Each structure stands twice: as structure tokens, then as C-alpha cells.
């Protein structure tokens, strides 16, 4: 070895650093003292018996997700939590800050390739120098990375029986990565102020049909040592089996599927993964482990689609049609949540068990490590790294293999009604389906149903108290009673956002012939509008200035509330009801992009949208409940 001239100073500098290494505190000691702090803060958090609405992210990827890493994301779970709390972070060289800090956040990195990512980051891992990972770190251009991803990852994950890649470093690295993720969640948990939820994503995708589930744990000290991905568990029924083992052993957990729009008929199929018709066991298991569904996210809105719901004037909302151009993910009516909610009633009738008895949440699926970056005016860095990181790419290009840039949305938000903001309370409220989803704004909406409720609203406090005492909140079954059920609702606009247009109740049921039926009722609306002769409520108007990307609140109302009695109620049949709240029109992110860049609006792309919120449903069954 030849040693050329070298400065002694820098060697000494490095050496002194090495001396410092010996003065380390025990990492373990520090951990338990942090837990003590968390516990003492937790014990001081007061409960609000009327409950508050807490807003948060339930679907987020950091550099631990291989596809995010390939897109240029280098933010880790800890950075994601910082962003959620309101600190500025940097994504692909651009600085960004959240419009309004979150109350809670779950980081849901893919279990798949988690070990590989750990090996990639940590030079002490045995797998660090596998030639494929060297290749990965070598890739500079975005197009190169996309090709690598399609070759090494996608084709492996979409086959009939997925297996680990040949650069899989073994279980130890998966466990290490999971420990890192848990540590970040523990570090940033501040009971009463900011909740973190230990979580990850199982990314099942047989033949390219999306069957992904996000998995959420209740207690950070009661989680498995390792998280299992699609190579370990190939069928969703086996995923539930694994969850059952965990849950039965005190590791409370549930799963939340998303993107049913892109599931190619599989999310709500009447057959299970092996092709057998759904039976009581399947329905019971699914109902137990999937209390919620993520109804909207960056890759579109899965509530309804304009092609299949021609009578729903608000169905043409973030339909993300270009999803159908990739991997044959053609939409069908049965892939949408409203259809599934009603279809579930048939199972309730026949099996007395509804596999689709889920509440709704909203997430983003952001791959930049920036949770709930939802404001339409704040989408300047996109959501998937380089793929949609510039105005040019968002207007003219795509997120590889999935969707055209223009069809993206910044994502959706989860609202949870809870007595306080702690991990256990938020998780419990989600398990109980006392949740609502919004398309990104901070609408707060409450929903109660019961046969004994008064048909008027006095104060907010009495509305809430009566709702819990005499009726049931969103996510529950109506308690049996006489006569027709009364539903009560109260929606408050985002105080920094747009006014409200209307509240609707959507009712679904199965008629005597066994057909799925639905009806949409406008139950509260702004500006004292009068329905026309055909009973239709006129549109609220439009105050948007497209060239400036602004709007004014001179239309719409700040609060909408009321009661509604279901006069068509039939006590012999199963029914499902949920609330949809619609805002006045506001500029879409594509309009902000155009205004800022001085570009024309794109043709065939919506320039405005009406943001909205959906509650979890209230069910009715003539059978004994649950």
C-alpha cells in the first residue's frame, strides 16, 4: 500500500472523534426513561366527553419503501413525523411545510423489500454489498430507476406466487428495519398533542389487481418482531389468519384496504382468493379484521364513479380514469365502496354476517415522506418524487405503471371522533368506526341515528349528548325501536377553507327481489335555496377566479345541520346510511399549477372541485345486531 502525503490534522481529528465513541450512554437506558416521560404525559391528558375531531394520516411511505426511494425520497419515518408536526423538510432539493399540523400520523412503509432497504442504508448489513443494491445506489437518472424497479420488483410482485428477490438479506434486516420504524414512532409520540401509530403495508397484488392493506397496531409494546409482506403471505385470508394469531395473543391489530377502484373485480368479489364462494367464516373474519376502508387517496376516489352512477350529480369527482390504462385495471361498478356497502347487506341477509361492514377513512399514499400534504394550493412538489415533482411532469407525464399526472389528487384525510388524542383512544375509535374521511379539507361532521331522537336541534351540546344517549353515532347499528328512524347531523366548514354547499344522506338497501337499491337525499343546504319543480336542488354557484386560482366565501354556509326522518323505512329489510358533505367549488391543484407557471388550463382536466367529507355508515338490520 502506498501512503501519499496526508494531513496529520485530519487524522487526529478523526481519532478524537473515535475517542468520543467510548463515552456513549446506554441506548437501552435512554429508551425506558423516554417511556416514563410518555406515561406521565399520558396520565395528564384530559378527556372531553363530547369528543373532539382529530385529523391525521393513515397511509404514508418514506425512504424505507423501495418505490419511494427510487423516486428520490430520502426522508425517513422520523422526518415524516416532523413534517406532520409542522416542521419544514426537503424533498428532492425543494423545501416544503404542511399547511396545518396533524393530530396523528401512521407511517405505512411496504413490508416488501423492507429488509432490502435496511441493507441498502446500513453498511454493516451483510446484504449491503449485494450487486443488485450496488446497482440501485448507482442509478442516477429517474428513467433508469424506473426500469430497474419494473425489472427487479414489479414483475416479481405481480406473478402468481411472489417470492423474495435474490438480494433479500434475510429476516434479521427486516426486524432491524421494523425496530427503526417503531423507534421513530416512539420518539415522536406526545400523548394529548401528537399521536403516532405503529403500522405498515402488506402489498398484495395478484395479476396487478390492487389488494393492498395497511396494518395498524394499538400498542407499541405489543407488536410482532417482524412484519410479513406479500412474499411471506400470498393470500389475504392468510393475512387475516396471521392477524388473528397476533390479536388473540394481545397484539391488537386491524387492517385497512385501499384503492378498491383498481382491484380488477377482486376487492369485493363473491369468491375468495382460492375461487371458493364467500362463506360465513370468511365474512366473520373479514368483518373482524377490516373495520375500515380507505375510500380516497392520491390514486383516486373509490366511493363512486360517474360512469356507473349517472344519477349522482356529484359522482364525477377524482375518478382518476387513466388508472385503467395500466395493467388492465379496468373499473367496474362492483369495485366501488358504495356498491360494496349495499352488496354487504345481501350477506347480512343470507349469512347474518356482513363482510363489508366498514367505516371510512382517507389517506394519501404519499411517497415523498410528507404525510397529509393535502391542500390543493400546496401540491407544488407532488407526491411521488421525480415522477410528479414538477409542473411539467404533472401536466404531461405519469406516475409509472399507475396513473397520468393530471389524474392525481393530493390525497384524503382521516377524521376521528375521540375523547382525547392518545394512541389507544385514536386506535379504539378507528376500530369502532367513529371516523369520517375528507377529500383534504378540515370539515368536521357528526352523524347520529335513532328511533327516539328529537326532530329538532337546540344546542350543539344537547345534540351530541342526546345522540350518544338515545341513539348511535356513525359506525354503529341502529338500536331497534318503533316507527321511523331519525337521523341527525352537524357539519362545520374548515375555518380556514371554503363554505359548505349541502349535506346528503345516501341510503342503500336490498329490495324484495334481491336487487341493490340506493337513493340520495339532500337533507341540509346553504343560502335558503328552493328545490325546483322536479325536486332537484339547484347548484350552489361558483365563485372561483380561474386565472388567479382564488375563490370567495360569498356563497355557501359555514354550518349545516338538521334532522331527517326516513319515511320510506321498512323494518323488515337491511339498510345502510351514510352522510356526504359537499363544499362550494374551489380551484383544483392543476389550476394553481397553471396560474403560478403562467400556463393555460389543460383541456379535459377539471379546473375546480367541490371538496367533501363522508361519514362511516349507520346500519339497520331486522336481525339481532352484530
Amino acid at each position, binding site marked *: 500500500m*502506498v*501512503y*501519499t*502525503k*496526508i*494531513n*496529520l*490534522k*485530519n*487524522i*487526529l*481529528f*478523526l*481519532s478524537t*472523534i*473515535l475517542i*468520543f*465513541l467510548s*463515552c*456513549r*450512554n446506554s441506548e437501552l437506558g435512554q429508551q425506558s426513561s*423516554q417511556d416514563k*416521560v410518555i406515561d406521565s404525559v399520558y396520565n395528564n391528558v384530559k378527556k372531553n366527553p363530547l369528543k373532539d375531531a382529530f385529523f391525521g394520516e393513515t397511509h404514508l411511505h418514506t425512504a424505507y419503501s423501495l418505490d419511494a426511494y427510487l423516486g428520490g425520497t430520502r426522508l425517513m419515518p*422520523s422526518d415524516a413525523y*416532523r413534517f406532520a408536526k409542522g416542521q419544514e423538510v426537503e424533498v428532492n*432539493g425543494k423545501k416544503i411545510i404542511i399547511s*396545518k399540523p396533524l393530530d396523528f400520523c401512521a407511517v405505512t412503509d411496504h413490508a416488501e423489500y423492507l429488509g432490502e432497504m435496511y441493507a441498502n442504508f446500513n*453498511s*454493516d448489513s451483510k446484504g449491503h454489498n449485494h450487486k443488485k443494491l*450496488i446497482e440501485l*445506489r*448507482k442509478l*442516477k*437518472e*429517474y428513467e433508469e430507476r424506473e426500469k430497474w424497479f419494473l425489472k427487479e420488483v414489479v414483475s416479481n410482485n405481480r406473478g402468481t406466487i411472489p417470492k423474495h428477490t435474490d438480494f433479500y438479506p434475510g429476516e434479521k434486516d427486516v426486524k432491524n428495519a421494523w425496530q427503526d420504524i417503531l423507534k421513530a414512532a416512539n*420518539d*415522536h409520540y*406526545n400523548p394529548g398533542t401528537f399521536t403516532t401509530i405503529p403500522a405498515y403495508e402488506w402489498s398484495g397484488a395478484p395479476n396487478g389487481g390492487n389488494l393492498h392493506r395497511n396494518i395498524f397496531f394499538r400498542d407499541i409494546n405489543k407488536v410482532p418482531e417482524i412484519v410479513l409482506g406479500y412474499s411471506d403471505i400470498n393470500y389475504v385470508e392468510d393475512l387475516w389468519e396471521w392477524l388473528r394469531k397476533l390479536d388473540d395473543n394481545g397484539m391488537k391489530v386491524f387492517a385497512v384496504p385501499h384503492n378498491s377502484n383498481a382491484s380488477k373485480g377482486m376487492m369485493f368479489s363473491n369468491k375468495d382468493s382460492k375461487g371458493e364462494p364467500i362463506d360465513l367464516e370468511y365474512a366473520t373474519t373479514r368483518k373482524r379484521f377490516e373495520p375500515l376502508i380507505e375510500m380516497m387517496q392520491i390514486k383516486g376516489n373509490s366511493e363512486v364513479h360517474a360512469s356507473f352512477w349517472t344519477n349522482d350529480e356529484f359522482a364525477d369527482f377524482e375518478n382518476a380514469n387513466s388508472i385503467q390504462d395500466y395493467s388492465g385495471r379496468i373499473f367496474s361498478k362492483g369495485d366501488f365502496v358504495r356498491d360494496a356497502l349495499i352488496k354487504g347487506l345481501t350477506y347480512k341477509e343470507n349469512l347474518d354476517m356482513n363482510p363489508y361492514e366498514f367505516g371510512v377513512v382517507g389517506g394519501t399514499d404519499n411517497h415523498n415522506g410528507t404525510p397529509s400534504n393535502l391542500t390543493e394550493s400546496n401540491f407544488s412538489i407532488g407526491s411521488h418524487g*421525480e415522477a410528479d415533482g*414538477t409542473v*411539467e411532469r404533472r401536466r404531461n407525464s405519469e406516475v409509472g405503471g399507475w396513473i397520468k399526472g393530471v389524474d392525481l389528487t393530493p390525497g384524503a384525510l382521516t377524521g376521528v371522533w375521540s375523547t382525547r388524542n392518545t394512541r389507544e383512544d385514536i386506535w379504539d375509535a378507528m376500530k369502532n368506526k367513529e371516523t369520517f374521511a375528507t377529500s383534504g379539507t378540515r370539515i*368536521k361532521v*357528526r352523524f347520529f341515528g335513532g328511533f327516539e331522537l328529537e326532530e329538532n*336541534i*337546540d*344546542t*350543539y351540546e344537547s345534540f351530541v349528548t342526546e345522540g350518544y344517549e338515545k341513539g348511535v353515532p356513525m359506525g354503529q347499528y341502529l338500536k331497534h325501536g318503533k316507527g321511523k328512524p331519525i337521523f341527525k347531523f*352537524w357539519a*362545520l*366548514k*374548515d*375555518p*380556514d*377553507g371554503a363554505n359548505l354547499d349541502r349535506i346528503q344522506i345516501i341510503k342503500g338497501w336490498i329490495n324484495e327481489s334481491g336487487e341493490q337499491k340506493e337513493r340520495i337525499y339532500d337533507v341540509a343546504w*346553504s343560502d335558503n335555496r328552493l328545490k325546483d319543480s322536479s325536486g332537484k336542488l339547484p347548484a350552489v354557484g361558483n365563485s372561483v377566479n380561474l386565472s388567479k386560482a382564488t375563490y370567495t*366565501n360569498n356563497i355557501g*354556509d*359555514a*354550518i349545516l*345541520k338538521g334532522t331527517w326522518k326516513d319515511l320510506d323505512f321498512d323494518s323488515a329489510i337491511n339498510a345502510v346510511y351514510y352522510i356526504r358533505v359537499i363544499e362550494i367549488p374551489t380551484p383544483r391543484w392543476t389550476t394553481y399549477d397553471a396560474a403560478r407557471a403562467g400556463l393555460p388550463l389543460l383541456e379535459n382536466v377539471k379546473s375546480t372541485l367541490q371538496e367533501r367529507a363522508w361519514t362511516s355508515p349507520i346500519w339497520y338490520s331486522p336481525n339481532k345486531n352484530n
Partner: protein
Amino acid sequence: MKKFLKEPLFHFLLIGTLLFGLFYIINPSEDKEEIVIDEELVNELVAKWGQKRNRQPTLNEIQGLISEYLEQEIFYREALKMNLDHNDEIVKRRLAQKMQFISDELAETLQPTEEMLLSYYENNKENYKKPAIFTLEQLYFSPDTREDATKDAQEVLASNDIPEQADPLSLPRSYQNTSGTKIAIDFGTRFATGIDSLSLNQWHGPILSGLGVHLVKINKKEPSGYYSYNEVKREVGLDYNFEANNKFKTDLLNELLKNYNIVYDLETKELANEK
């Protein structure tokens, strides 16, 4: 820590320290190495950058590219001196990454003392601002149901007869010891600004919010300030480590930079970064 001890590099450094000490005694004059930043290099960097984007980089961005290049070049050269003698693009990147990983790992293992944390807290107090704490009451006048909510609010205020409730609102009439942040979240930023400098123990209005019009009475206000060190010890620890990781790498780089003469051979003088 253990992982570093196993690194061959660590062994090199130990042996190197001894050998170089000797070398230094024999050959005390230190010549600085040159790294040249010229037009050709800058054009190359700009061209690569421009391929991904549809525009030219700004001055700031070009400076960033030059910094990035310097960092990689220095780490590479230092690594070269300690190890191999190749000039292969792949090896170059690998060695630079190796140095970066090592500096990352070194930084991670540094644990701050209580004094260091306290000193960090003092130097970064602006990050630990405490919002004002309010005990207040508010009445809501709805623009949805009133012709002129502002006028109505003014009339009620003038009458001195403040009712229990004006219009129904799904937010409490009274807030006890609530942070200004929570008030801003519930009522919006306009309201939070509006109540900021109101005098205590009397009704004020009309105060506007994103929801409508309010009358507000502040019964108690703890002024905004700073959380005490003990109140935010956990956050300070997290922030310290976060910054220390970044700072360590910068420090190391700056130390190494002292061995190099950076020669700028450019027309655009502003690109020469005076660090």
C-alpha cells in the same frame, strides 16, 4: 460502535496515525491539493441537471451543484488516500458513499451530555416557543342566518346584555387554559390574529373568523413565551441528534476542505462560493 471497530478503515486510521505522525516529522511542509472548478465542469453539471427538468437551474441551484460536486470529490480523494488507487466512476461513488456512511454512523453514535442539550436549547430557543394560553368566552353570530351578523354583534355588544348563546356553534362557548395554537385550529388563523392583543375582562367585537362573527372576552391570558428546558427535554434531544447528524458531516467536510485549494476558473464570479 461495534460495527465501526470491525471496519478495516478503523484499523487503517490507527496504523495510519502512527505512520503519518512519522511522515509528518520527516516531511513537515504541507502542500494543498487543488480542485479546479471551471466552466467545462459547471456546464457538465448543469447539463446533467437540466436533462431531468425543463428549465435552467437558478444561481442558487448551480451553487448547490458545485457544493455537491466538491463534497463527493473531497470524500473520494480522502478515501483514495486511505485505500485504493483507482479512478473508476463506480469505485469513486462507492468510496464517497462509504465515507458518507461512516460519517453518518459516527454522528449517530455521539450522545450529548446534559450540558450540550441545555446549550443547544438556549441557542435554538426560537424553536421552543410557547403559544399564549387563553381562558376565554366567545359568542357566535352566524352570517348564514343573519342579514348582517357584524351589525347584530355590535348591537349586542353596545347593549351590555351579553346572552348565554347568540347562534349555535359546534365549538365551546368557553375555553379554559387553552393554547393559542388550538384556538387557531378551531377558529382559523384570522380569529387567532384578531384576539391577539385584546384587553382582558371585557367583551370585544366584532371579531371575524372563517366561520363568521364573534364577541370575545378574555378572562385570563398567559403571554406567549418559551417552554422551559424541562418541558421540552424530549424534543430538544430529538432535535439535537437530528442536527448533530447533519452538522457532523458538514464539520468533517469542512475540516477536510482545509486541505484543498478550490480554484474557480469561471466567468460567472457569483458561482464561486465563499464559505
